[in-house]
């Protein structure tokens, strides 16, 4: 026999739980540690379940969960090693990998040879603000407006962080690929 509480749980499992993978992956990049990410993801989901009556069915459950995740992280999980130092986007030297590879590998096939763990390491080496924006966009596919809302910054800031984050990440991946001999360094 089904009670209102059962119906509520069923709805939560149907609309919120499918986003657990996303919540976990973003938690992993925020916390930088597997067991901490699991705790963070679990706390986020249970907190969301308790607040489920505040969620309007049919709206963006993923963005709602990620907002809760972010608050949970900032309020309790922030560790010294992952302190959110802010980086001035203009202080980062512009670097376009395409310019380096256009003669030797214009289609970027070297990317495919880089192993998963190295990709995750490269993402985690990004400054926190950039990492967060890049993960929400390039890994989880959120729109600029969704990211702006979750992170609490203007859309223009999302754009500029994303631009620099992609340049930085591509450079790290490129340097790694050169080091591993997957691609030879292009003549400048």
């Amino acid at each position, binding site marked *: 026999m089904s009670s209102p509480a059962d119906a*509520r749980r069923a709805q939560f499992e149907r609309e919120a739980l499918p986003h657990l993978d996303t919540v976990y992956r973003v938690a992993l990049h925020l916390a930088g540690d597997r067991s901490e990410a699991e705790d963070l993801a*679990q706390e986020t989901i249970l907190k969301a379940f308790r607040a489920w009556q505040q969620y309007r069915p049919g709206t963006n459950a993923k963005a709602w969960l990620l907002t809760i995740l972010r608050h949970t992280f900032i309020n309790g999980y922030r560790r010294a090693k992952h302190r959110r130092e802010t980086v001035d986007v203009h202080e980062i030297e512009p670097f376009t990998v395409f310019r380096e590879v256009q003669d030797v590998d214009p*289609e970027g096939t070297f990317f495919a040879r880089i192993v998963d763990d190295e990709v995750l390491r490269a993402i985690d080496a990004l400054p926190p603000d950039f990492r967060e924006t890049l993960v929400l966009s390039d*890994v989880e*596919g959120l729109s600029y407006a969704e990211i702006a809302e979750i992170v609490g910054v203007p859309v223009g800031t999302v754009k500029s962080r994303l631009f620099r984050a*992609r340049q930085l990440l591509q450079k790290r991946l490129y340097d790694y690929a050169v080091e591993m001999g997957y691609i030879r360094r292009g003549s400048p």
Partner: protein
Amino acid sequence: MTTPDRPAGCREVVDRLYEYLDRELDPAVERAVRGHLAECAHCFALHRFEDAYRRFLEARAQAKGAPPELRRRILHHLLSGRDPEAP
């Protein structure tokens, strides 16, 4: 600023390429960028490279989901841990 009547130049296409790939441009600007990419070999090559990067990253970084043990633990909490505010 590009309008539907004036085609986009290389500089503008390079500046807006990420917004184009992210499907964040107004339809008119998107058309102008697409039109430029169809005609400019250099911008098209850059576009192909950035597109390859995005596909690669999405596929790689999404490869790992939540551990099954975490999923089980959460389901267990949802089933057993009755919400204190529920009747």
